């Protein structure tokens, strides 16, 4: 009398089992069962452990095939059978068994996921799934003046787990993203905007991670011909550039080297991209490869560039000067954001 899974598989798999799986989850929903009962239903009907992980809502439930709650979960195996909670969403419900899925497994996954979605919408609202709700929570979490209780509550709602380090990511356009470290598969933001990535810190240290992320964002570039450079900068790799960033405020006058870069940019469309490659690659040969041009073409262009700039970029000192000028140009382009999130533009 004990194996629900055995009873199901013993039934006619095409009709009997499917009908019973549907009835089982429908009945749980009718009687307003909780998430754990739904995950347990998936586990006992499929006869293997099942887990639900919804990072956005901070829901983590694992239940063994015998119905016992087990929360010592390692990472999900990509080979396991899984289902998303939304049609295009990431996997959120797993049966800890490799495919191919039998008729019962597929039906269990489909009905369990649909039921879980219904319960989540009922009990937690769909708000956390929308960006505005997440932004409001992120702002609390990144605000050093908010109480620790409020910040930890916001962290929980964002799906961050106590004791797991996290980092703030500043996106071009003003949005904040908070990721646990290592990132647990949080989807990359749509369109991959420029991003400054703060260092990993304990949850209550996130305001500092955010400040560093904002500085890193100022050092990013569009990665286009007119604004070449990295689209993502990690704060913990900035080194002394962070000090330089602090020195450049909205009213600071650009130094002559920055004006020189602007002149160079105006002189030829390829100019800035060429200089950036020379500044960031380890040799002129690798720079030529990165630019998809012949080594001698690069030599010719650099001769032109050095004329406009007024200094040689062939030696180490000239390249450092070029690197600093490029960094300063970005810092001037991206006016410093205010330190507090709530004051950020837009």
């Amino acid at each position, binding site marked *: 009398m*004990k194996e*629900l899974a055995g*009873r*199901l598989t013993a039934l006619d798999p095409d009709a009997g089992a499917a009908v*019973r799986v549907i*009835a089982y989850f429908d009945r749980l929903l009718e009687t307003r*069962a909780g998430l754990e009962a739904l995950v347990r239903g998936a586990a*006992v009907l499929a006869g293997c452990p099942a887990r639900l992980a919804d990072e956005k809502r901070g829901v983590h439930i694992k239940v063994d095939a015998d119905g016992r709650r087990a929360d010592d979960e390692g990472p999900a195996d990509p080979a396991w059978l899984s289902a998303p909670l939304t049609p295009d969403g990431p996997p959120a419900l797993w049966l800890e068994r490799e495919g191919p899925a039998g008729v019962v497994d597929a039906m269990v996954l489909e009905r369990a996921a649909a039921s879980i979605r219904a319960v989540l919408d009922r009990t937690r609202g769909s708000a956390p799934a929308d960006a505005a709700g997440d932004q409001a929570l992120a702002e609390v979490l990144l605000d050093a003046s908010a109480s620790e209780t409020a910040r930890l509550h916001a962290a929980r709602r964002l799906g961050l787990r106590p004791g797991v380090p996290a980092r703030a990511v500043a996106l071009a356009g003003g949005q904040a993203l908070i990721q646990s470290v290592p990132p647990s598969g949080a989807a990359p933001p749509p369109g991959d905007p420029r991003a400054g990535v703060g260092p990993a810190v304990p949850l209550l240290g996130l305001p500092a991670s955010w400040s560093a992320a904002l500085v890193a964002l100022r050092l990013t570039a569009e990665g286009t011909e007119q604004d070449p450079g990295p689209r993502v900068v990690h704060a913990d790799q900035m080194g002394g550039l962070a000090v330089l960033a602090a020195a450049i405020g909205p009213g600071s006058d650009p130094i002559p080297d920055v004006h020189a870069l602007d002149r160079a940019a105006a002189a030829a469309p390829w100019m800035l991209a060429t200089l950036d490659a020379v500044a960031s690659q380890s040799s002129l040969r690798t720079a030529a490869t990165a630019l998809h041009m012949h080594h001698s073409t690069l030599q010719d262009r650099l001769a032109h560039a050095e004329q406009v700039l007024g200094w040689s970029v062939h030696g180490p000192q000239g390249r450092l000067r070029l690197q600093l000028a490029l960094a300063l140009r970005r810092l001037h382009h991206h006016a410093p954001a205010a330190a507090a999130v709530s004051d950020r533009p837009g």
Partner: protein
Amino acid sequence: MTTPSSPPHHDRLSPPPFDSELAAALAIVAENIPSSLLPEMIPGLQSGAVLMRPSDDDLRRGGAFEIEERTVPGPEGAPDISLLICRPAGVTGPIPALYNIHGGGMVMGDNRTGIEATLETAQELGLAVVSVEYRLAPEHPHPAPVEDCYAGLVWTAEHAEEIGVDRERIIVGGSSAGGGLSAAVALLARDRGGPALAGQLLACPMLDDRNDTVSSLQMAGLGVWDRTSNDTGWTALLGERRGGPDVSPYAAPARAEDLSGLPPAFVDVGSAETFRDEDVAYATRIWQAGGQAELHVWPGGFHGFDIMVPQAAISQAARAARTDWLRRLLAR
């Protein structure tokens, strides 16, 4: 009182709702078990179509238990009975034992019915299990079943040393009809000056042949072992005497006038089953008689929910409560 035919004021008794997980599982686990069992269905059920019989290997639990079937004398003038003895492997010296009486409404099952859950608990606590095979109604009406059970208990106590059991720590227990028979065996042991029991574990016990409580009326046609099934079981055991004035307390322990001087009792039952009211009353009467009882009423539980749907959260809690009681009892 004789078979009350649903008096009008009971027609609209609304039953307590089933627990959510139990309700969902009920359709799957109980599809072979109709709520209402009729006498003509007994032969089919006795043939074992419903109750899965664990193999010797199942009972050994991967080598955790050594098992042995012993044929021992039955009641005076009656056939021998069989005891299934399961001892933790490699354990010497006297250990506590659970004397197990299987369920099955007095009309079905054998000494392996439902024993796997009992062995799981026994393994956790280091207990031996002695499970008795008793004659079934209607072929063998009262007092055959209870006298078989009692004879097996007496043999177990008298041969405790031989089978490595501590005779001071024998607990009688069972589910459903097995719970009722356990209560009856405890009464017999008291009244005949038989083996001193350490406790009685009465899981959703079948205690009262009158079958006229509010819970039996509420659950008519619902869940597992409804009022009709109960009528079928008791009538098989007692025939015409069922519900009448002269039913022995050793057949239906709810009939006992005196519940004093009994071993500590554990009683559990679901709120959504026929036996709810008679089981609660039995525990209450033990307290009123100055005895010791622990009572658990599991909300929304149908009859035998923890055996049929062991994975449900409420079933895990019910089994844990039983294990905890045994642990406390044996720690004395």
